[in-house]
């Protein structure tokens, strides 16, 4: 990567994240990016919707991989709880929305962390409110992942699918439709580097050039 281009479209962090200047990231101190993650323009990442109650004790290593802007003030919590975690080589397309899941639990409405694994692709205008998104997951464009849904590794969400809240998509399964159902399985070679499902590095490489 050449030395910082003066005013490129993307900000590249130390860990190699490429974040569009036109993306809307709220609550950066509650977001952990694993590195080499691409966030495109107009993507909305709601790190401000973190779990406010003190019962969450899972705020882990915020130091090394955190992209939290040093200039951003960390006002309230001494140990900021993590709202959104994104792994390596994940790709958030334009106008996608990542929002931590929420639910009413014991009379209290609270947010839960959203964990996104490695090599995940989130398509354009997709809305992700999942609890967990595994590795190598593909979320098609304009798909909606309902609150507290779980997408296991190598799950494939077709374009425009509406994954119902709380749904679990097992590994290697293809879901589609509204509400989403399991409509098939991806082949065994899915996720092999360079083939379908394994294009994350290539996707990352071409961004911002």
């Amino acid at each position, binding site marked *: 990567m050449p030395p910082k281009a003066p005013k490129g479209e993307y900000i590249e962090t130390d860990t190699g994240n490429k974040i569009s200047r036109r993306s809307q990231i709220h609550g950066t101190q509650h977001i952990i990016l694993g590195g080499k993650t691409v966030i495109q323009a107009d993507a909305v990442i709601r790190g401000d919707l973190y779990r406010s109650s003190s019962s969450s004790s899972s705020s882990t290593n915020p130091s090394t991989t955190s992209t939290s802007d040093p200039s951003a003030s960390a006002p309230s919590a001494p140990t900021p709880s993590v709202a959104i975690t994104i792994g390596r080589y994940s790709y958030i397309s334009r106008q996608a929305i990542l929002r931590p899941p929420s639910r009413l639990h014991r*009379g209290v409405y609270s947010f839960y962390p959203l964990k996104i694994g490695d090599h995940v692709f989130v398509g354009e205008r997709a809305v992700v409110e999942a609890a967990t998104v595994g590795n190598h997951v593909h979320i098609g464009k304009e798909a909606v992942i309902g609150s507290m849904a779980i997408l296991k590794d190598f799950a494939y969400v077709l374009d425009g699918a509406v994954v119902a809240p709380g749904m679990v998509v097992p590994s290697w399964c293809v879901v589609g439709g509204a509400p989403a159902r399991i409509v098939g399985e991806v082949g065994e070679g899915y996720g092999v580097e360079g083939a379908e499902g394994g294009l994350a590095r290539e996707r990352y490489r071409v961004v911002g050039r």
Partner: protein
Amino acid sequence: MSRPFPYAYISCPCANTPVPDPSKKRRSRESPQKSNPDQPKPLLPIDDEDEQTFDPRSPRANFSLYPPEQLLYCEDCHQIKCPRCITEEIVCWYCPNCLFETPSSMVRSEGNRCARNCFNCPSCTAPLAVNTLENVVTGGTSQQGPWVLSCGYCMWSTLDIGIKFDKPTNIRTQLSKMTEATPVRSRQMSRTFGELKSPLSTYSSIDEQFPPPGETKPAEDSPDQPNIPLNPDARFNALKNFYKNQISATSSSPTDPLGMDFGSGFSSPGALNRIMSLYTSSSRLSSLYGGANKKPKTRPPVMREALTASEGLKVPAPDAEDAVIQRIAGPDCGWDGLASLEQRSFQSPDVRFVEDLLPLPVLLRTKRSKRCKSCKHILVKPELKPQSTRFRIRLIALSYIPLPTLRPLNPSPHATSAVPAGSTATTTTTTTTTNLDALSPLRPVQLLLTLKNHMFDPVRVTLATPSVTPGRVASKVTILCPQFDIGANSDVWDEALQGAAAPTASTTSTSTSTTATTTAAATAAAAAAATDPRGSRSGGLGMYEKVAEAGKVWDKGRNWTTVVLEVVPGTLPGGVRRQQQQQQLQKPKKPSVVRGFDLDNTNTNTNTKSDSDSDNDSDSDSSGDVPALDWSGQASDPRQQLQPDEDVLEIPVFVRMEWDSENQIDNEHAVGRPSADTVKRELAYWMVLGVGRIGRVL
């Protein structure tokens, strides 16, 4: 799942061998040649079969084209294996919702549905969540309310059918208890639902209480209470049990000579025996199947049908239909009260109304291992645990065949200026990216085809393509460098240590005739490639500042090679018809053969619009291997409409790869031979490159 352009599909060779004949399998494609040097080459018979170009539009092509990641590779047959040439075996059953494994014995006894808390919404099929109704926080422990299943998608809940659960666990048993036993619902409210409760269902199991055939309970046989129906499950069990008993009663005890025709049951081999004997009266088969059939045919004892409700017979009430109709017509039902066909298809057949819908326990899914159909070797064996994504064995085709990727070569302004006489290229400079969803007809497009080798041996690849794509929309295709090498997928460190020693044994044998339907341009380009095999390794040039040259690979890396395809999309029928008609008026049609591609002129882009018509003529004339339609009669073609997806530009490419592989265990007997450590291998298949969609306008 259709893919966005560009894509590459690979045709499994099994489509060419329709009969699963092991000898035929061996004949095809791949052969370790060292084993039979004196015999005629086993590759020979496929030559005539390969004379015909693979047509991606033929109806059969649908059944052989697969995306590369779906294909497997059998190391024993040395053959690509598609989902049609494998068999599957279930490794484990699991619920896709809770991801718990269900033992197969339980699947057999209880059916393939999750026995836990997993349900699907009967109204919209989304998964149901267990929710509490009351959220009373009383001290430390809270929320002891009744529980319901509710759908987060359509807001359906079991309250709609009047069901609440006492505890949040074991919903399935609670539900089945409710639907069978408890009189929660009024009968006149929902007749079919009320029928679910029956006096019989208080029995723990129908099977135990079932009366022996012939002796019926008088209480239920009596006509004055004809419908004490069972719920559907119990009725099914009753019927099943009844017929089982009927069979065992009417068929033989072993001492009974009369029942021999039935064997021990209908599903037993004896039944097959009986069926076979219906058609073959000859003595050959009956001697084959034992002497039982030689006995004089006797009339089998007559089985009776189920007669009573306890046997599973259901006699609907005489006014049942009327009641349903009246209810449908009633004011409180309406359209929304009726269950849709889709909803009913998952419910018991009696369900007609929305308020009869029951939550559906989630269907289980399976993990399956896969075997080669011809040699029974295991190709894929996943880990047993449902959650695991790993495989114990996974022989995917991508590890063996080069992975094709296609992308358009977008000419930079610099490059297009270098194209001589690029009359059409001037416009492409304005549009920097090629729109693959609307390729302009007759305007050449250059595409980069990258083949990436995943084997540890260097591979030499020969590509061949028909000069004109089959079908009515004839696009011209040239592979500028149809023969090239791909380096081995060696360790990155190996290459670093070796320095500049490139992993190519350069093209020594150009005599390898390109199979099938290579165009003249392609073969000559191959010869050109042989003379200068590595001339086009990218120097310090930028990626897109080069100009594609015939006979040279575009770019090359450790284990991949990129070549350039030049495509001139054809015109759609009726697409540019008006212009052509005008041109036909202006100039006489040339019947002479005009080669679409010339060797010296790699830039065939100089075809202007005016001679496109003659080009089409010439292509159908010159390429005899393509079952071309009569393009000269295009204007008078009655079928001017485009067939669905006829405008998709798909290029069939024949790939033939050769490599020297390490000798494997199956060649142990050939130890004494000097060249025993490497075996020349060869694999050939068709692939289809989906380039894009041809637009209507020029």
